[in-house]
């Protein structure tokens, strides 16, 4: 069986063999743990985000005092970019990282997904809430994980979902309200962050080493950089996007 799987497939090891190879449990020595920080800078004119027209569902519209705006490109007042997923793409020693016991959360509030971008770990629970008085459908448009589409009526039970394969920024959409769109990244390790209102990110508890750091934005795509972080040290890396 192993021979059949392995013979004649070139130099790449067969998937079966990779799957059974022992992977040690990950462990970071707190005494040498490092921090990776940085900012995602935006150059050029910030695109104006359109107001969302929720008139097709007045119950959504009523929940906003002023019209909600699209979150495709959110440039902060300090000229940094919000909602960029930053993670260690390469450089970590092979290890199995245990997902946190706490759930990540994706809520539907005012017919908007919150948060707009988030990272979760492989196997971590994602709790999906409908806080709206209207029906939603939640469509995870994954490509590497199994895609699914389920309805979630008002006051329905929370949904609990897990994703088992690493996947960078797939959309979660609602076809009842076509403006609703969130992005989720599934990471095999806990070393990721999403930029917020000041465009900065901080990834803590990282083992010392040399890493490829990737920043991914839903519209502007991905950028990479390499850095080395010494034991107990802090390394800084910035990314720049522009229109």
């Amino acid at each position, binding site marked *: 069986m192993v021979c059949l799987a392995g013979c004649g497939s070139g130099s790449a090891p067969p998937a079966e063999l990779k799957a059974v190879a022992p992977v040690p449990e990950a462990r970071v020595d707190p005494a040498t743990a490092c921090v990776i920080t940085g900012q995602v800078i935006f150059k050029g004119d910030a*695109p104006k*985000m*359109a107001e*969302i*027209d929720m008139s*097709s*569902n007045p*119950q*959504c519209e009523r929940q906003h005092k002023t019209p909600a705006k*699209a979150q*495709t490109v959110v440039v902060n007042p300090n000229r940094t970019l919000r909602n960029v997923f930053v993670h260690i793409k390469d450089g970590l020693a092979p290890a199995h990282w245990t997902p946190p016991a706490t759930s990540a959360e994706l809520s539907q509030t005012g017919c908007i997904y919150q948060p707009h971008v988030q990272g979760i770990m492989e196997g971590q629970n994602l709790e999906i809430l409908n806080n709206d008085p*209207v*029906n939603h*459908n939640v*469509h995870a448009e994954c490509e590497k994980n199994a*895609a*699914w*589409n*389920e*309805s979630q*009526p008002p006051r329905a039970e929370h949904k609990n979902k897990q994703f088992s394969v690493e996947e960078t920024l797939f959309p979660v*959409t*609602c*076809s*009842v*309200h*076509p*403006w609703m*769109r969130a992005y989720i990244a599934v990471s095999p390790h806990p070393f990721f962050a999403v930029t917020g209102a000041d465009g900065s990110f901080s990834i803590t508890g990282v083992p010392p080493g040399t890493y490829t750091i990737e920043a991914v934005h839903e519209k502007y795509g991905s950028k990479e950089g390499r850095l080395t972080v010494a034991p107990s040290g802090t390394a800084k890396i910035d990314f720049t996007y522009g229109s």
Partner: protein
Amino acid sequence: MAHSGEYHRGLHRWSILLAFCTLLLVVAGGLVTSRDAGLSVPDWPLSYGKLMPPMEGGILYEHGHRMIATTVGMFTIVSLVWLLIVEKRLWMKWLGGAALVAVIVQGALGGLTVIYLLPWWISSAHASLAQLFFSTTVAMAIFTSGWWLRAPVSVDEDERHPIRGLSLAAPVFVLAQLALGAAARHKAIGSIYHICGSPIVTFVVLWVSLRILLHYARNRELRMGALTLIGVTMTQVFLGIAAYMSRIAYADAVQPMPLMVAFTVLHVAVGALTLATSVALAILVRRNVPAPSRAYSSTRVAAVS
């Protein structure tokens, strides 16, 4: 084939109603895709576990499409039963049966595409079969009309400019172009294939229509049919350009924009009308331009040799 039946006014009017409802169904289907509402109701055949979910947001389009589809399915069953009772032409009964099979397959494709999250090949097949089914209902309306049952005002086929075979090219090319459009719409292929197909189909339609206008124009029915096909096709070309331009203009929009939706849905609907018109013209040609008799053919061959 044309003159062996009896005219039943009720059946003919019912067939017209079926064709009209089918066009509405095509429009409703176009709205579902253009409004990105295809997965707003994740379950099938029920909607949110009910026969009638709250008609809000995208559910209005998706469930509305299902309701119209159910109505068209019922109407098709009634058509077949009616044909089985009153129709004397066996081939007409078979056509009614084929329409029912098509609408059942169409419903199944619609359900499967929702359950399997809109795979391009099911969605494209669903969109293409919709166009074929509409043309079938238009053909049924033609075949049940009193006009069809009357003796045709026929015209001899011009040997140097034959039209009977050529007239079939228009619906074949239009259907292929509609299938390309459906595949592009459901992201199986790039729009470029549909765009490149447009001048080819337009050329074929003009070839057929102009041959009729240049060599068969003395037959009023053929003349009107050819002019109608040219008019519908040119409208369709304009709508295709408008739909494409509106998609470019609103490429970054966070939700489907009304102008883009309007042009795209009209393009889908007029596409269905273009196919139906080309089918109707082919039917008209084969009715009004009788096939040369075997005797005539042998005489002609003998004369040439």
